[in-house]
Protein backbone atom coordinates (compact mmCIF):
# COMPACT_ATOMS: atom_id res chain seq x y z
CA UNK A 1 0.00 0.00 0.00
CA UNK A 2 1.35 3.42 -0.91
CA UNK A 3 0.51 6.03 1.71
CA UNK A 4 -0.20 9.60 0.67
CA UNK A 5 2.77 11.64 1.81
CA UNK A 6 2.13 14.21 4.50
CA UNK A 7 3.91 16.95 2.63
CA UNK A 8 4.69 17.36 -1.05
CA UNK A 9 6.57 20.46 -2.08
CA UNK A 10 7.32 21.01 -5.75
CA UNK A 11 9.57 23.78 -7.01
CA UNK A 12 8.30 26.26 -4.48
CA UNK A 13 9.69 29.79 -4.47
CA UNK A 14 8.92 32.57 -2.01
CA UNK A 15 10.69 35.90 -2.13
CA UNK A 16 10.38 39.07 -0.11
CA UNK A 17 11.08 42.67 -0.94
CA UNK A 18 14.20 43.81 0.80
CA UNK A 19 15.39 47.33 0.22
CA UNK A 20 15.89 47.71 -3.51
CA UNK A 21 16.03 44.02 -4.38
CA UNK A 22 14.33 40.80 -3.38
CA UNK A 23 15.41 38.04 -1.03
CA UNK A 24 14.70 34.47 -2.06
CA UNK A 25 13.56 33.11 1.30
CA UNK A 26 12.59 29.79 -0.33
CA UNK A 27 14.42 29.07 -3.56
CA UNK A 28 12.95 26.45 -5.88
CA UNK A 29 12.50 23.90 -3.14
CA UNK A 30 11.24 20.40 -3.80
CA UNK A 31 10.75 17.80 -1.10
CA UNK A 32 8.42 15.09 0.16
CA UNK A 33 7.76 14.12 3.77
CA UNK A 34 6.06 10.88 4.65
CA UNK A 35 3.05 10.77 6.92
CA UNK A 36 4.00 10.13 10.53
CA UNK A 37 7.57 11.37 10.05
CA UNK A 38 9.24 13.45 12.71
CA UNK A 39 11.57 15.94 11.22
CA UNK A 40 13.91 18.59 12.51
CA UNK A 41 14.27 21.57 10.22
CA UNK A 42 17.71 23.01 10.78
CA UNK A 43 19.92 25.63 9.26
CA UNK A 44 21.47 28.98 10.02
CA UNK A 45 19.47 32.03 10.86
CA UNK A 46 17.81 33.48 7.77
CA UNK A 47 17.97 30.22 5.85
CA UNK A 48 14.19 30.13 5.41
CA UNK A 49 12.95 27.73 8.13
CA UNK A 50 10.18 29.96 9.43
CA UNK A 51 9.17 30.86 5.90
CA UNK A 52 8.88 27.18 4.99
CA UNK A 53 6.72 26.47 8.05
CA UNK A 54 4.48 29.43 7.16
CA UNK A 55 4.06 28.09 3.65
CA UNK A 56 3.23 24.62 4.97
CA UNK A 57 0.68 26.11 7.36
CA UNK A 58 -0.92 28.09 4.51
CA UNK A 59 -0.13 31.28 6.40
CA UNK A 60 1.84 32.40 3.36
CA UNK A 61 1.37 31.75 -0.35
CA UNK A 62 4.27 30.64 -2.52
CA UNK A 63 5.21 32.85 -5.49
CA UNK A 64 5.32 29.72 -7.60
CA UNK A 65 5.29 25.97 -7.20
CA UNK A 66 2.90 23.57 -5.54
CA UNK A 67 2.37 22.53 -1.96
CA UNK A 68 0.14 19.61 -1.07
CA UNK A 69 -0.62 18.36 2.43
CA UNK A 70 -2.03 14.85 2.67
CA UNK A 71 -2.86 15.03 -1.00
CA UNK A 72 -4.72 18.34 -0.82
CA UNK A 73 -3.20 21.27 -2.64
CA UNK A 74 -3.12 24.28 -0.36
CA UNK A 75 -1.33 26.95 -2.39
CA UNK A 76 -4.55 28.01 -4.09
CA UNK A 77 -6.70 28.36 -0.97
CA UNK A 78 -8.02 31.79 -0.09
CA UNK A 79 -7.55 33.09 3.41
CA UNK A 80 -10.81 31.80 4.86
CA UNK A 81 -10.41 28.37 3.25
CA UNK A 82 -6.83 28.19 4.48
CA UNK A 83 -8.04 28.97 8.00
CA UNK A 84 -10.58 26.16 7.79
CA UNK A 85 -7.90 23.81 6.48
CA UNK A 86 -5.62 24.74 9.36
CA UNK A 87 -8.22 24.25 12.04
CA UNK A 88 -8.86 20.73 10.78
CA UNK A 89 -5.38 19.53 9.91
CA UNK A 90 -2.63 21.57 11.47
CA UNK A 91 -1.32 22.38 14.91
CA UNK A 92 1.05 25.31 15.40
CA UNK A 93 3.55 25.93 18.17
CA UNK A 94 5.40 29.23 18.23
CA UNK A 95 8.53 30.26 20.00
CA UNK A 96 6.68 31.98 22.82
CA UNK A 97 3.85 34.21 23.87
CA UNK A 98 1.19 32.45 21.92
CA UNK A 99 -1.54 31.97 24.53
CA UNK A 100 -4.52 34.29 24.68
CA UNK A 101 -4.03 36.35 27.83
CA UNK A 102 -7.76 36.88 28.26
CA UNK A 103 -8.53 33.16 28.38
CA UNK A 104 -7.70 30.63 31.07
CA UNK A 105 -5.41 27.69 30.37
CA UNK A 106 -8.37 25.38 29.84
CA UNK A 107 -10.09 27.89 27.56
CA UNK A 108 -6.93 28.35 25.53
CA UNK A 109 -6.74 24.62 25.01
CA UNK A 110 -10.43 24.59 24.12
CA UNK A 111 -10.08 27.05 21.23
CA UNK A 112 -9.27 24.58 18.42
CA UNK A 113 -12.14 22.32 19.46
CA UNK A 114 -14.56 25.21 19.33
CA UNK A 115 -13.39 26.00 15.83
CA UNK A 116 -14.28 22.49 14.68
CA UNK A 117 -17.59 22.67 16.55
CA UNK A 118 -17.03 19.88 19.01
CA UNK A 119 -19.87 19.18 21.42
CA UNK A 120 -19.52 20.85 24.80
CA UNK A 121 -19.38 17.58 26.72
CA UNK A 122 -16.69 16.14 24.52
CA UNK A 123 -14.70 19.37 24.78
CA UNK A 124 -14.76 19.15 28.55
CA UNK A 125 -13.67 15.56 28.56
CA UNK A 126 -10.86 15.96 26.03
CA UNK A 127 -9.47 19.11 27.58
CA UNK A 128 -9.50 17.44 30.98
CA UNK A 129 -7.70 14.42 29.58
CA UNK A 130 -4.96 16.29 27.80
CA UNK A 131 -4.29 18.63 30.73
CA UNK A 132 -3.98 15.61 32.99
CA UNK A 133 -1.76 13.83 30.46
CA UNK A 134 0.58 16.80 30.27
CA UNK A 135 0.45 17.31 34.00
CA UNK A 136 -1.21 20.70 33.70
CA UNK A 137 -4.51 20.01 35.39
CA UNK A 138 -3.72 22.21 38.38
CA UNK A 139 -3.44 25.25 36.04
CA UNK A 140 -6.66 24.70 34.18
CA UNK A 141 -8.38 27.75 35.68
CA UNK A 142 -5.26 29.93 35.82
CA UNK A 143 -4.51 32.66 33.34
CA UNK A 144 -1.37 32.25 31.23
CA UNK A 145 0.52 35.13 32.81
CA UNK A 146 0.74 33.22 36.09
CA UNK A 147 2.52 30.27 34.43
CA UNK A 148 6.25 29.77 33.86
CA UNK A 149 7.65 29.78 30.32
CA UNK A 150 7.89 26.00 30.25
CA UNK A 151 4.38 25.52 31.56
CA UNK A 152 3.03 27.99 29.03
CA UNK A 153 4.79 26.17 26.23
CA UNK A 154 3.30 22.86 27.36
CA UNK A 155 -0.13 24.46 27.32
CA UNK A 156 0.67 25.63 23.80
CA UNK A 157 1.53 22.04 22.90
CA UNK A 158 -1.75 20.85 24.37
CA UNK A 159 -3.60 23.46 22.31
CA UNK A 160 -1.69 22.47 19.16
CA UNK A 161 -2.69 18.81 19.37
CA UNK A 162 -6.07 18.79 21.14
CA UNK A 163 -7.99 18.66 17.86
CA UNK A 164 -5.87 15.71 16.67
CA UNK A 165 -4.28 17.40 13.68
CA UNK A 166 -2.32 15.40 11.15
CA UNK A 167 0.58 17.83 11.00
CA UNK A 168 2.31 19.65 13.84
CA UNK A 169 4.43 22.65 12.85
CA UNK A 170 6.72 23.99 15.56
CA UNK A 171 9.02 26.97 15.16
CA UNK A 172 11.78 26.81 17.77
CA UNK A 173 9.37 25.94 20.55
CA UNK A 174 12.12 25.55 23.13
CA UNK A 175 14.35 28.47 22.21
CA UNK A 176 13.32 30.47 25.25
CA UNK A 177 13.32 27.60 27.75
CA UNK A 178 16.01 26.18 29.97
CA UNK A 179 17.28 22.66 29.49
CA UNK A 180 14.86 20.90 31.80
CA UNK A 181 11.78 22.77 30.63
CA UNK A 182 12.82 22.23 27.02
CA UNK A 183 13.24 18.51 27.58
CA UNK A 184 9.85 18.30 29.16
CA UNK A 185 8.21 20.02 26.19
CA UNK A 186 10.08 17.85 23.71
CA UNK A 187 9.21 14.71 25.65
CA UNK A 188 5.61 15.70 25.55
CA UNK A 189 5.66 16.21 21.81
CA UNK A 190 7.53 12.95 21.25
CA UNK A 191 5.04 11.03 23.35
CA UNK A 192 2.06 12.51 21.51
CA UNK A 193 3.67 11.82 18.15
CA UNK A 194 4.41 8.22 19.07
CA UNK A 195 0.86 7.51 20.18
CA UNK A 196 -1.03 9.33 17.44
CA UNK A 197 0.99 8.97 14.27
CA UNK A 198 1.25 12.75 14.05
CA UNK A 199 3.65 14.20 11.48
CA UNK A 200 5.97 16.66 13.20
CA UNK A 201 8.14 19.31 11.60
CA UNK A 202 10.16 21.35 14.06
CA UNK A 203 12.48 24.20 13.17
CA UNK A 204 15.44 24.58 15.51
CA UNK A 205 19.01 25.83 15.87
CA UNK A 206 19.71 23.79 18.91
CA UNK A 207 21.81 20.59 18.46
CA UNK A 208 20.42 19.14 21.67
CA UNK A 209 16.97 19.47 20.17
CA UNK A 210 17.63 18.16 16.69
CA UNK A 211 19.72 15.29 17.95
CA UNK A 212 16.53 13.77 19.28
CA UNK A 213 15.06 13.61 15.78
CA UNK A 214 15.72 10.63 13.55
CA UNK A 215 15.56 12.75 10.45
CA UNK A 216 16.82 16.25 9.73
CA UNK A 217 16.28 18.62 6.85
CA UNK A 218 19.00 21.20 6.59
CA UNK A 219 18.33 24.49 4.87
CA UNK A 220 20.68 27.12 3.58
CA UNK A 221 19.69 30.25 1.65
CA UNK A 222 16.22 28.92 0.95
CA UNK A 223 17.46 25.61 -0.41
CA UNK A 224 17.66 22.14 1.09
CA UNK A 225 21.21 21.00 1.73
CA UNK A 226 20.60 17.34 2.38
CA UNK A 227 18.25 14.90 3.94
CA UNK A 228 15.47 14.85 1.38
Amino acid at each position, binding site marked *: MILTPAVQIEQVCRSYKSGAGRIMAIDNLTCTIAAGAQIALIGPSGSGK*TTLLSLLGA*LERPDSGKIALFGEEINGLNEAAA*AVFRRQNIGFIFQDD*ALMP*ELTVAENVTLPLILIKTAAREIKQRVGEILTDLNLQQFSRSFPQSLSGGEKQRVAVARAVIHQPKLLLADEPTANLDRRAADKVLDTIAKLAATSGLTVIMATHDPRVYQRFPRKLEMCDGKLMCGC
Partner: protein
Amino acid sequence: MNFWLRFALRSCLRRRRRTLITLLGIAFGVATMVVLGAVMVGVNDTMIKNAVAIHTGNVVLQGDSVPSAQALTRVNKLADSLPAVDDRIKTVLPRLHFPVLLTADQRSLPLNIVAVTPKLEALQTPIAGRMVSGKYFADSQGLVLGAAAADKLGIEVGDQVFLITRAQRSAIKVSGIFSLGVAGLDQGIGFIALARLPTLPAGSVNYEMAIFCSPGSDLRKVAARVRDLSLPSEKVRLWDDVLPDVAQLVKLNEFSMLIMVALVVIILGFGVANALLMSVMDRYRSFAVLKAIGVRPREIFIVIMAEAFFMGLLAAVIGTILGSLVTLIWSGFGLDLSHYTSSNPLFSVNSTVYPRLAPVMVLVPQAAALGAGILAAVWPALVAGRRSVNQVMRGL
Protein backbone atom coordinates in the same frame (compact mmCIF):
# COMPACT_ATOMS: atom_id res chain seq x y z
CA MET B 1 -23.17 32.55 25.22
CA ASN B 2 -21.42 32.31 21.89
CA PHE B 3 -17.70 31.77 22.43
CA TRP B 4 -16.62 34.78 20.41
CA LEU B 5 -18.95 37.09 22.27
CA ARG B 6 -17.59 35.78 25.55
CA PHE B 7 -14.10 36.27 24.23
CA ALA B 8 -14.92 39.86 23.31
CA LEU B 9 -16.38 40.49 26.75
CA ARG B 10 -13.26 39.08 28.38
CA SER B 11 -11.05 41.26 26.23
CA CYS B 12 -12.97 44.32 27.37
CA LEU B 13 -12.76 43.27 31.01
CA ARG B 14 -9.08 42.46 30.77
CA ARG B 15 -8.18 45.89 29.44
CA ARG B 16 -10.21 47.42 32.22
CA ARG B 17 -8.66 50.84 32.34
CA ARG B 18 -8.74 51.42 28.62
CA THR B 19 -12.27 50.10 28.38
CA LEU B 20 -13.33 52.30 31.26
CA ILE B 21 -11.87 55.45 29.74
CA THR B 22 -13.49 54.82 26.37
CA LEU B 23 -16.70 53.90 28.08
CA LEU B 24 -16.76 57.00 30.24
CA GLY B 25 -16.04 59.13 27.19
CA ILE B 26 -19.03 57.74 25.35
CA ALA B 27 -21.21 57.82 28.47
CA PHE B 28 -20.35 61.46 29.09
CA GLY B 29 -21.19 62.31 25.49
CA VAL B 30 -24.53 60.52 25.73
CA ALA B 31 -25.31 62.15 29.08
CA THR B 32 -24.53 65.58 27.63
CA MET B 33 -26.79 64.94 24.70
CA VAL B 34 -29.59 63.72 26.95
CA VAL B 35 -29.35 66.80 29.17
CA LEU B 36 -29.06 69.25 26.26
CA GLY B 37 -31.93 67.48 24.55
CA ALA B 38 -34.02 67.81 27.69
CA VAL B 39 -33.21 71.51 27.96
CA MET B 40 -34.23 71.96 24.34
CA VAL B 41 -37.46 70.10 24.96
CA GLY B 42 -37.99 72.30 28.01
CA VAL B 43 -37.42 75.48 26.00
CA ASN B 44 -39.88 74.28 23.40
CA ASP B 45 -42.34 73.34 26.13
CA THR B 46 -42.15 76.82 27.60
CA MET B 47 -42.55 78.52 24.24
CA ILE B 48 -45.50 76.34 23.33
CA LYS B 49 -47.04 76.68 26.76
CA ASN B 50 -46.77 80.45 26.69
CA ALA B 51 -48.12 80.76 23.20
CA VAL B 52 -50.83 78.21 23.72
CA ALA B 53 -52.02 79.55 27.07
CA ILE B 54 -53.01 82.90 25.65
CA HIS B 55 -53.97 82.01 22.13
CA THR B 56 -55.32 78.58 21.45
CA GLY B 57 -54.89 75.77 23.92
CA ASN B 58 -53.25 72.61 22.58
CA VAL B 59 -56.25 71.92 20.43
CA VAL B 60 -58.82 74.49 19.52
CA LEU B 61 -62.35 74.21 18.27
CA GLN B 62 -63.29 77.33 16.34
CA GLY B 63 -66.84 78.31 15.51
CA ASP B 64 -68.21 80.72 12.93
CA SER B 65 -69.57 84.11 13.70
CA VAL B 66 -73.02 83.63 15.24
CA PRO B 67 -75.33 85.73 17.44
CA SER B 68 -73.96 85.88 20.94
CA ALA B 69 -76.84 84.07 22.57
CA GLN B 70 -76.44 81.14 20.22
CA ALA B 71 -72.70 81.10 20.80
CA LEU B 72 -73.22 81.05 24.54
CA THR B 73 -75.52 78.07 24.36
CA ARG B 74 -73.07 76.23 22.13
CA VAL B 75 -69.98 76.86 24.28
CA ASN B 76 -71.82 75.89 27.44
CA LYS B 77 -72.81 72.63 25.84
CA LEU B 78 -69.26 72.00 24.64
CA ALA B 79 -67.82 72.89 28.04
CA ASP B 80 -69.92 70.11 29.49
CA SER B 81 -69.33 67.48 26.87
CA LEU B 82 -65.71 67.95 25.76
CA PRO B 83 -63.87 66.93 28.96
CA ALA B 84 -65.54 63.52 28.81
CA VAL B 85 -64.40 62.91 25.26
CA ASP B 86 -60.82 61.96 26.07
CA ASP B 87 -59.02 61.60 29.37
CA ARG B 88 -56.01 63.44 27.97
CA ILE B 89 -58.10 66.60 28.04
CA LYS B 90 -57.31 68.52 31.22
CA THR B 91 -59.23 71.76 30.83
CA VAL B 92 -61.60 73.26 28.31
CA LEU B 93 -61.89 77.03 28.16
CA PRO B 94 -64.69 78.72 26.24
CA ARG B 95 -63.65 82.01 24.62
CA LEU B 96 -65.94 84.32 22.68
CA HIS B 97 -64.42 87.11 20.62
CA PHE B 98 -65.88 90.28 19.26
CA PRO B 99 -64.38 93.62 18.25
CA VAL B 100 -65.39 96.86 19.93
CA LEU B 101 -64.35 100.45 20.01
CA LEU B 102 -63.35 101.30 23.54
CA THR B 103 -63.93 104.91 24.49
CA ALA B 104 -63.23 107.00 27.55
CA ASP B 105 -63.71 110.75 27.54
CA GLN B 106 -62.61 111.94 24.11
CA ARG B 107 -60.30 109.07 23.28
CA SER B 108 -61.05 105.71 21.72
CA LEU B 109 -59.23 102.53 20.79
CA PRO B 110 -60.17 99.40 18.84
CA LEU B 111 -60.12 96.40 21.14
CA ASN B 112 -60.79 92.72 20.82
CA ILE B 113 -62.98 91.62 23.65
CA VAL B 114 -62.65 88.04 24.82
CA ALA B 115 -65.37 86.71 27.06
CA VAL B 116 -63.99 84.00 29.33
CA THR B 117 -64.83 81.95 32.42
CA PRO B 118 -62.61 83.74 34.95
CA LYS B 119 -62.05 80.91 37.43
CA LEU B 120 -61.01 78.32 34.85
CA GLU B 121 -59.14 80.84 32.75
CA ALA B 122 -57.08 81.97 35.71
CA LEU B 123 -55.63 78.48 36.04
CA GLN B 124 -54.21 78.50 32.51
CA THR B 125 -53.60 82.05 31.45
CA PRO B 126 -50.46 83.86 32.52
CA ILE B 127 -52.42 87.10 32.58
CA ALA B 128 -53.83 86.48 36.03
CA GLY B 129 -50.28 86.61 37.35
CA ARG B 130 -49.35 89.70 35.42
CA MET B 131 -51.75 92.23 36.85
CA VAL B 132 -50.21 95.63 37.45
CA SER B 133 -53.32 97.18 38.87
CA GLY B 134 -56.60 95.85 40.21
CA LYS B 135 -57.41 92.14 40.18
CA TYR B 136 -58.01 89.54 37.54
CA PHE B 137 -61.78 89.43 37.79
CA ALA B 138 -62.47 90.34 41.39
CA ASP B 139 -66.07 90.10 40.25
CA SER B 140 -67.64 89.10 36.97
CA GLN B 141 -68.74 92.59 36.07
CA GLY B 142 -65.61 94.42 35.05
CA LEU B 143 -63.22 94.69 32.15
CA VAL B 144 -59.63 93.48 32.34
CA LEU B 145 -57.37 95.10 29.79
CA GLY B 146 -53.74 95.67 28.98
CA ALA B 147 -51.55 98.45 30.31
CA ALA B 148 -50.83 99.90 26.89
CA ALA B 149 -54.52 100.28 26.16
CA ALA B 150 -55.15 101.82 29.56
CA ASP B 151 -52.32 104.30 28.98
CA LYS B 152 -53.64 105.30 25.60
CA LEU B 153 -57.01 106.02 27.00
CA GLY B 154 -55.68 107.48 30.23
CA ILE B 155 -57.81 105.27 32.42
CA GLU B 156 -57.31 103.50 35.71
CA VAL B 157 -58.97 100.75 37.64
CA GLY B 158 -62.40 101.90 38.73
CA ASP B 159 -62.93 104.19 35.74
CA GLN B 160 -65.88 103.77 33.54
CA VAL B 161 -65.42 103.15 29.83
CA PHE B 162 -67.74 102.39 26.93
CA LEU B 163 -67.78 99.46 24.60
CA ILE B 164 -69.16 100.51 21.27
CA THR B 165 -70.33 98.01 18.71
CA ARG B 166 -72.29 98.51 15.56
CA ALA B 167 -75.46 97.90 17.55
CA GLN B 168 -75.08 99.85 20.69
CA ARG B 169 -72.95 101.39 23.33
CA SER B 170 -72.70 100.17 26.90
CA ALA B 171 -70.81 101.18 29.98
CA ILE B 172 -68.40 98.93 31.88
CA LYS B 173 -66.00 99.46 34.73
CA VAL B 174 -62.29 98.75 34.43
CA SER B 175 -61.50 96.19 37.08
CA GLY B 176 -57.94 95.20 36.27
CA ILE B 177 -54.94 96.11 34.15
CA PHE B 178 -52.30 93.62 33.10
CA SER B 179 -48.96 93.93 31.39
CA LEU B 180 -47.40 91.04 29.50
CA GLY B 181 -44.77 93.09 27.70
CA VAL B 182 -46.16 91.94 24.39
CA ALA B 183 -47.42 94.95 22.49
CA GLY B 184 -50.19 93.22 20.56
CA LEU B 185 -51.71 91.80 23.71
CA ASP B 186 -51.18 94.73 26.03
CA GLN B 187 -52.92 97.07 23.66
CA GLY B 188 -55.29 94.93 21.68
CA ILE B 189 -57.12 92.63 24.06
CA GLY B 190 -59.61 93.07 26.83
CA PHE B 191 -61.33 90.39 28.87
CA ILE B 192 -64.79 90.18 30.28
CA ALA B 193 -66.51 87.37 32.10
CA LEU B 194 -68.73 85.12 30.09
CA ALA B 195 -71.50 85.88 32.60
CA ARG B 196 -71.39 89.53 31.60
CA LEU B 197 -71.91 88.83 27.91
CA PRO B 198 -75.72 88.71 27.85
CA THR B 199 -75.86 92.26 29.22
CA LEU B 200 -73.64 93.56 26.45
CA PRO B 201 -74.68 94.32 22.89
CA ALA B 202 -72.14 91.99 21.37
CA GLY B 203 -74.11 91.19 18.25
CA SER B 204 -72.30 88.46 16.39
CA VAL B 205 -69.35 86.77 18.05
CA ASN B 206 -66.75 84.18 17.13
CA TYR B 207 -66.46 81.44 19.64
CA GLU B 208 -63.79 78.92 20.41
CA MET B 209 -63.03 76.20 22.91
CA ALA B 210 -59.40 76.19 23.97
CA ILE B 211 -58.61 72.63 24.96
CA PHE B 212 -55.64 71.98 27.22
CA CYS B 213 -54.17 68.49 27.36
CA SER B 214 -51.73 66.78 29.69
CA PRO B 215 -48.07 67.16 28.58
CA GLY B 216 -46.87 64.77 25.92
CA SER B 217 -50.39 63.82 24.80
CA ASP B 218 -50.96 62.75 21.23
CA LEU B 219 -52.83 65.86 20.17
CA ARG B 220 -53.85 64.42 16.82
CA LYS B 221 -55.87 61.74 18.56
CA VAL B 222 -57.48 64.24 20.90
CA ALA B 223 -58.34 66.43 17.94
CA ALA B 224 -59.92 63.50 16.14
CA ARG B 225 -62.17 62.78 19.11
CA VAL B 226 -63.13 66.43 19.44
CA ARG B 227 -63.85 66.55 15.73
CA ASP B 228 -66.41 63.79 16.18
CA LEU B 229 -68.38 66.12 18.45
CA SER B 230 -68.09 69.23 16.34
CA LEU B 231 -70.59 70.81 13.98
CA PRO B 232 -69.84 71.06 10.28
CA SER B 233 -69.37 74.80 10.66
CA GLU B 234 -66.77 74.34 13.38
CA LYS B 235 -63.09 73.73 12.80
CA VAL B 236 -60.83 71.69 15.07
CA ARG B 237 -57.17 72.63 14.77
CA LEU B 238 -53.93 71.90 16.57
CA TRP B 239 -51.99 74.76 18.07
CA ASP B 240 -49.20 74.43 15.51
CA ASP B 241 -51.69 74.95 12.73
CA VAL B 242 -53.00 78.12 14.36
CA LEU B 243 -49.55 79.39 15.38
CA PRO B 244 -47.22 78.36 12.55
CA ASP B 245 -44.57 80.86 13.65
CA VAL B 246 -44.20 79.15 17.03
CA ALA B 247 -44.32 75.72 15.42
CA GLN B 248 -41.48 76.72 13.11
CA LEU B 249 -39.41 78.00 15.98
CA VAL B 250 -39.86 74.67 17.72
CA LYS B 251 -38.77 72.85 14.56
CA LEU B 252 -35.75 75.12 14.21
CA ASN B 253 -34.80 74.32 17.77
CA GLU B 254 -35.08 70.61 17.10
CA PHE B 255 -33.03 70.94 13.96
CA SER B 256 -30.16 72.70 15.70
CA MET B 257 -30.29 70.02 18.39
CA LEU B 258 -29.99 67.40 15.69
CA ILE B 259 -26.87 69.07 14.36
CA MET B 260 -25.47 69.08 17.89
CA VAL B 261 -26.16 65.40 18.26
CA ALA B 262 -24.54 64.69 14.91
CA LEU B 263 -21.42 66.61 15.93
CA VAL B 264 -21.11 64.90 19.29
CA VAL B 265 -21.67 61.53 17.64
CA ILE B 266 -18.97 62.15 15.06
CA ILE B 267 -16.51 63.16 17.78
CA LEU B 268 -17.50 60.09 19.80
CA GLY B 269 -17.02 57.94 16.73
CA PHE B 270 -13.45 59.13 16.24
CA GLY B 271 -12.73 58.58 19.92
CA VAL B 272 -14.01 55.04 19.79
CA ALA B 273 -12.18 54.31 16.55
CA ASN B 274 -8.95 55.56 18.08
CA ALA B 275 -9.33 53.58 21.29
CA LEU B 276 -10.23 50.40 19.44
CA LEU B 277 -7.45 50.80 16.91
CA MET B 278 -4.92 51.14 19.72
CA SER B 279 -6.33 48.11 21.43
CA VAL B 280 -6.22 46.16 18.16
CA MET B 281 -2.64 47.17 17.47
CA ASP B 282 -1.68 46.01 20.95
CA ARG B 283 -3.16 42.66 20.16
CA TYR B 284 -1.82 41.97 16.67
CA ARG B 285 0.10 39.06 18.09
CA SER B 286 -2.98 37.52 19.64
CA PHE B 287 -4.88 37.85 16.40
CA ALA B 288 -1.98 36.32 14.46
CA VAL B 289 -1.95 33.33 16.80
CA LEU B 290 -5.71 32.97 16.44
CA LYS B 291 -5.34 32.99 12.68
CA ALA B 292 -2.62 30.35 12.87
CA ILE B 293 -4.98 28.17 14.90
CA GLY B 294 -7.55 28.50 12.13
CA VAL B 295 -9.69 31.45 13.13
CA ARG B 296 -11.04 33.20 10.06
CA PRO B 297 -10.64 36.96 9.57
CA ARG B 298 -14.41 37.17 9.71
CA GLU B 299 -14.45 35.75 13.21
CA ILE B 300 -11.80 38.21 14.36
CA PHE B 301 -13.91 40.96 12.82
CA ILE B 302 -16.87 39.77 14.86
CA VAL B 303 -14.86 39.83 18.08
CA ILE B 304 -13.83 43.46 17.62
CA MET B 305 -17.32 44.50 16.59
CA ALA B 306 -18.72 42.74 19.62
CA GLU B 307 -16.27 44.57 21.86
CA ALA B 308 -17.43 47.87 20.39
CA PHE B 309 -21.03 46.81 20.81
CA PHE B 310 -20.62 45.85 24.47
CA MET B 311 -18.78 49.03 25.25
CA GLY B 312 -21.22 51.18 23.29
CA LEU B 313 -24.23 49.55 24.88
CA LEU B 314 -22.97 49.83 28.42
CA ALA B 315 -21.81 53.40 27.85
CA ALA B 316 -25.13 54.37 26.29
CA VAL B 317 -27.02 52.94 29.23
CA ILE B 318 -24.75 54.60 31.80
CA GLY B 319 -24.86 57.87 29.88
CA THR B 320 -28.62 57.78 29.63
CA ILE B 321 -29.03 57.08 33.32
CA LEU B 322 -26.58 59.83 34.21
CA GLY B 323 -28.17 62.34 31.82
CA SER B 324 -31.65 61.45 33.00
CA LEU B 325 -30.68 61.88 36.63
CA VAL B 326 -29.16 65.30 36.00
CA THR B 327 -32.25 66.27 34.02
CA LEU B 328 -34.65 65.08 36.69
CA ILE B 329 -32.81 66.97 39.41
CA TRP B 330 -32.58 70.06 37.24
CA SER B 331 -36.22 69.93 36.25
CA GLY B 332 -37.03 70.23 39.94
CA PHE B 333 -35.97 73.87 40.04
CA GLY B 334 -35.88 74.87 36.39
CA LEU B 335 -33.61 77.20 34.54
CA ASP B 336 -34.37 80.90 34.50
CA LEU B 337 -33.68 82.27 31.04
CA SER B 338 -35.15 85.72 31.65
CA HIS B 339 -31.74 87.27 31.03
CA TYR B 340 -31.78 85.93 27.47
CA THR B 341 -35.48 86.12 26.72
CA SER B 342 -36.92 89.24 28.36
CA SER B 343 -37.65 90.88 24.99
CA ASN B 344 -38.97 87.72 23.40
CA PRO B 345 -42.76 87.58 23.32
CA LEU B 346 -42.69 83.80 23.53
CA PHE B 347 -40.97 83.97 26.90
CA SER B 348 -42.32 87.22 28.28
CA VAL B 349 -45.04 85.39 30.09
CA ASN B 350 -42.86 82.80 31.74
CA SER B 351 -39.13 82.57 31.20
CA THR B 352 -38.32 79.58 33.38
CA VAL B 353 -37.46 76.48 31.43
CA TYR B 354 -37.93 73.04 32.93
CA PRO B 355 -35.74 70.43 31.21
CA ARG B 356 -37.91 67.47 30.28
CA LEU B 357 -36.99 63.96 29.15
CA ALA B 358 -38.80 63.31 25.92
CA PRO B 359 -38.50 59.68 24.79
CA VAL B 360 -37.09 60.63 21.40
CA MET B 361 -34.44 62.92 22.83
CA VAL B 362 -33.38 60.14 25.20
CA LEU B 363 -33.31 57.38 22.62
CA VAL B 364 -31.71 59.31 19.77
CA PRO B 365 -28.40 59.99 21.57
CA GLN B 366 -28.36 56.42 22.83
CA ALA B 367 -28.92 54.92 19.42
CA ALA B 368 -26.58 57.42 17.80
CA ALA B 369 -23.76 56.67 20.23
CA LEU B 370 -24.22 52.94 19.83
CA GLY B 371 -24.35 53.30 16.07
CA ALA B 372 -21.29 55.52 16.01
CA GLY B 373 -19.39 53.10 18.23
CA ILE B 374 -20.19 50.17 15.98
CA LEU B 375 -19.44 52.11 12.83
CA ALA B 376 -16.19 53.33 14.30
CA ALA B 377 -15.21 49.74 15.06
CA VAL B 378 -15.42 48.60 11.44
CA TRP B 379 -12.04 49.94 10.44
CA PRO B 380 -10.12 48.60 13.49
CA ALA B 381 -11.94 45.29 13.11
CA LEU B 382 -10.88 45.01 9.49
CA VAL B 383 -7.33 45.96 10.42
CA ALA B 384 -7.26 43.27 13.11
CA GLY B 385 -8.04 40.49 10.66
CA ARG B 386 -5.95 41.75 7.81
CA ARG B 387 -2.39 41.63 9.19
CA SER B 388 -0.47 38.61 7.90
CA VAL B 389 0.62 36.18 10.59
CA ASN B 390 4.14 36.06 9.20
CA GLN B 391 4.55 39.82 9.44
CA VAL B 392 3.18 39.98 12.95
CA MET B 393 5.34 37.14 14.20
CA ARG B 394 8.39 38.88 12.78
CA GLY B 395 7.34 42.11 14.43
CA LEU B 396 6.96 43.83 11.07
